[in-house]
């Protein structure tokens, strides 16, 4: 984990303010997937009720 973090911070892009570590990326992606999954469930329930 530390190695990956080091790699990301060593990356040229990290110097230019884009310094995400792997945990931030995965958490961000999972959070967005979760938001969309909740929306899909709400729509599915709505379809069932209507």
């Amino acid at each position: 984990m530390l190695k990956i973090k080091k790699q990301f911070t060593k990356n040229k892009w990290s110097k230019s303010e884009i310094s995400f570590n792997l945990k931030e990326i995965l958490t961000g992606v999972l959070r967005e997937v979760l938001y969309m999954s909740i929306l899909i469930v709400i729509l599915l329930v709505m379809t069932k009720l209507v």
Partner: protein
Amino acid sequence: MKQSKRNINDLKVISYYTGYIVIGTGLLMIIPILIALFLQEKEPLIDFIISINISLIIGFILMILGHSNKEKIYVEWKHGLVIASLSWIMLMILCAIPYYLSNHMVSFLDACFDVMSGFTTTGVFLLQDLDHLSVSLNVWRHILTFVGGQGMVVLALTFLTSKTQGAYKMYVGEGKDIALLPNTRNTTRLIWFISLVYLIIGTFVFWVNGIIIGLNPLSALYHGFCIFASAWSTGGFGPMSQNMLYYHSFSYEIVTVIFFMIGALNFGFHYTVWRGNKKEIYKNIEMQSFFITIMITSFLVVMGLNKFDVYPNAIATFRKGVYGLLSAHTTTGFMNVYARQFALEWGDFSIVVMTIAMLIGGCACSTAGGFKALRVGIVFKGIIADIKKSLVSENRVKTFKYHHIKDQVLDSDVVKSSALIILCYMILFIGGTLLGCFYNYPILESAFESASVTGNVGLSIGVTSITMPQVLKIYYIVAMYLGRLEFISVFVLIGFAIGGVKKICARK
């Protein structure tokens, strides 16, 4: 004399950076060339070698023409906007060459139509016999839509240029105006970083899903990449002519919904969520507007479908109706019903709701089209603010705010510019509807197809075909182009061209 020198300098700076962007996108043809080599697709290989050579030669000529004075020239707003809009036209023509050479297109205009549809992430196509298209050309179609989602100018700024002078003006010209980071090059890099992270994750998820539904691993990878590229870019292309119907899989459909919904979100939103901001999802005016319109339009479509008992149960209504609505609202255009089913089975009410959803579209600064949820939210909030102002005492000054990434003041200029863009979209949409009616298509079908191209959606009700009138094809190309670049930069290009012609006439 001074004026004449200025004009030449204008042309030089436009020529130089347009050449830059043409080369950047032309180099992408290396990917289908490698695929054609690997799969021994000889004819497509020759087509792509011819095309890449033409693109690079034209790109270098443009750069050489504008090279001499580039250090001294300051990139003005008009330059940035003209470069962005001109590059798109040049790239449409150059990227259409491998399409045309493949013998899958009836005419070069059709090839341009398909390329513009790809670049603008629309998804309607005139390509013939898609199921027997070479893998390299099919991948090329999906690369175009993936790159188009992020923007070709964004691509060139990210990977080619080392200078940031004037970059923001070109970036804005491509219809993205949010500065995620203080430096434009870093902003464009961030957009690509987010997209590439999702490309890896999304392709992997589709690959696994493809194997589960019975595709062999290599085929699952090919379909996974193509479908992810289309879903993320809200493009709507599929590697097979049946589009999503080909997979016949609920899980595949659900995964596409997740990715095209995420693809339709603002890159600024991705950035803040990745930075750990959990509150943005319900505080952001664009998210509120986007999810509210999705809920309302989904409800209405389900009501409309249930009224005519189109589908036997809730799951079928969700898979066809809500899926179609989400595909329309996010401007993706994936279809799991046949085009004519919309016209023959869905009923007028559902078609009108779908048309409205297509016009609203996804979020600003995303890969989605339409007049954007942010503008709908701002105009709605502007109306509420005006009502509140009328109700309070005249002596009291009240400032209204909205939250979009950060708290911002809702002044009349913001509301006015949002309303103006919505107005432009509506004029373009009405023009397409009228033109369709002129050529004897039913009004509802004309409106549906016009909304689909104006909002860069790609759902078709059956109007788009090789037999449709050439004028309608050209109008749809222009509508896709204007809709994607959000008018201003194209208007500047037209103004620039008219100004140039006037000067030439005045000299004579």
